[in-house]
């Protein structure tokens, strides 16, 4: 039997475009997630750090991870919760939309959005004369963009489980908690030992360390020390998101 369903690539592309427009047109989402990271970076690294090369570089690595956390956690956590609550997901589920097109579209749109947030920080760093090789730029940027995935999965797990109001609250706590305790704002070495221990179960910490490696501020020898736990945590986040989706579908 010939299919009556539209070709998948076109649907994925249109979902991505729609998700990007939705994010870009929501000032309450777009402004804090894009402008706050670059604002903080300018304040902490350039202002308080007085443009010191080492500070500017280290903070670029970790603030880039911080910058993708916002779009990923809020875009998936808070927005999926409200789309589910309002029946928008239900309507898509009853349509012949290829399974997951909406989520994949959201993921790609979030990556594009994160790329803008990161690009703004990179621009500030470039203005104060940061010295990085092309391969260091590329490695750091790809690490930070990939960081969208684990945070999106965590957000998705929250969005499928909670009402939109509680989802916003939870996501705020996760966002700030993972940023601070993951050492993205202040190096973990300057924090109490308890927080240094907690950091091991936070994807933000491992992603920050991997981004630091990319710009030569951590030893590549430690790669698996962070990539390993990150892979496990991402897997756990995927299970969290998947079981949430199953609850929603039931």
């Amino acid at each position: 039997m010939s299919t009556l369903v539209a070709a998948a690539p076109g649907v994925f592309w249109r979902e991505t475009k729609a998700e990007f427009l939705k994010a870009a047109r929501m000032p309450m989402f777009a402004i804090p997630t894009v402008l706050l990271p670059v604002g903080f970076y300018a304040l902490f690294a350039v202002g308080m750090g007085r443009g010191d090369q080492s500070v500017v570089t280290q903070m670029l690595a970790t603030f880039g991870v911080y910058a993708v956390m916002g779009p990923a956690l809020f875009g998936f956590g808070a927005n999926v919760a409200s789309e589910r609550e309002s029946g928008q997901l239900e309507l898509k589920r009853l349509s012949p939309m290829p399974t997951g097109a909406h989520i994949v579209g959201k993921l790609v749109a979030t990556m594009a959005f994160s790329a803008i947030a990161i690009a703004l920080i990179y621009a500030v760093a470039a203005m104060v004369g940061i010295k990085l090789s092309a391969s260091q730029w590329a490695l750091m940027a790809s690490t930070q963009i990939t960081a969208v995935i684990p945070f999106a999965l965590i957000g998705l797990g929250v969005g499928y489980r909670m009402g939109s109001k509680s989802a916003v609250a939870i996501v705020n706590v996760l966002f700030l908690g993972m940023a601070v305790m993951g050492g993205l704002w202040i190096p973990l070495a300057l924090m109490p030992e308890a927080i240094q221990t907690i950091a091991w179960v936070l994807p933000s910490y491992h992603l920050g360390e991997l981004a630091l490696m990319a710009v030569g501020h951590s030893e590549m020898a430690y790669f698996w020390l962070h990539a390993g736990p990150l892979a496990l945590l991402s897997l756990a986040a995927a299970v969290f998101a998947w079981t949430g989706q199953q609850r929603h579908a039931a």
Partner: protein
Amino acid sequence: MPSISSGDLAALQSVSKSYAKRNVLQDFDFALEPGTVTALLGPNGAGKSTIVGLLSGRLSPDAGVIKLFGLDPRHQNARARLGVMLQAAGLPDALTVSEVITLHAGYFKRGLKTADILDQAGLTALAKRPCDKLSGGEQRRVQFALAIAGAPDLLVLDEPTTGLDVQARHALWRTVREKAANGAAILLATHHMDEAEALADRLVVIADGRIAADGSPAAIKGRVAGTTIRVRTPLCAGVLQSLPGVIKVVLRGADASIFSSHARNTLEALFRADPSLNDVDVTAASLEDALASIVEATLKEAA
């Protein structure tokens, strides 16, 4: 376009479904016909929404078989021929009416053009408006637009005109009639009797999870061959009740509503008993009366 023979369009066969140990449907059989508007009527909790949910693949049955175009309702090719308007559903705030419709129509290989959908749903003037700037009624019309976007062979409408003004309501009815005339099957769940009467070729009354009546609006109304006589009279209820043909009397002060199985006999006797009778209003039994009596009888039988 594959042709549809009746029977394999959409059917529930010996379906049972219960919630929290309460049987909503038990051994339930039901099928839809192409080119026909079928209205599901019945009190809240009778099982209407469950039937809509089962046919659209939102719910799965505890027992029995559900076929949509010969397939499981969850099959993508079944969904591609189905359009659903849910009772309560939101829209993406930031997208415009036209963007939402284009996105949804894009899921269907033979979906309608956005301009045609806007036109059929009466939304052309609102095409560029963001969804969060729409009134409740306008949002319902967008939901209707999404339901027809894929040129469905089965259109399921759950309380489609709640919140619509009279004009929008009539416009929606017109479009639904056109869809049926072009061969689509329409399943309409509604609380509005005028809507069922205006649209439906077939009424299915659900009470207590069973089909209490199934037929044309005229046939269903005929099930209660009665007339309501409204008069102003000083006569007491007892006297009115004893008149020939009277089934039931409701008295509010001097205003009496007399339900009669034989209007002529009742009226003649009434004029003899009270020559000063005035403000006489005689109406045939309404669909609402018929429905109430069918449901009441079914529930009594079940109890």
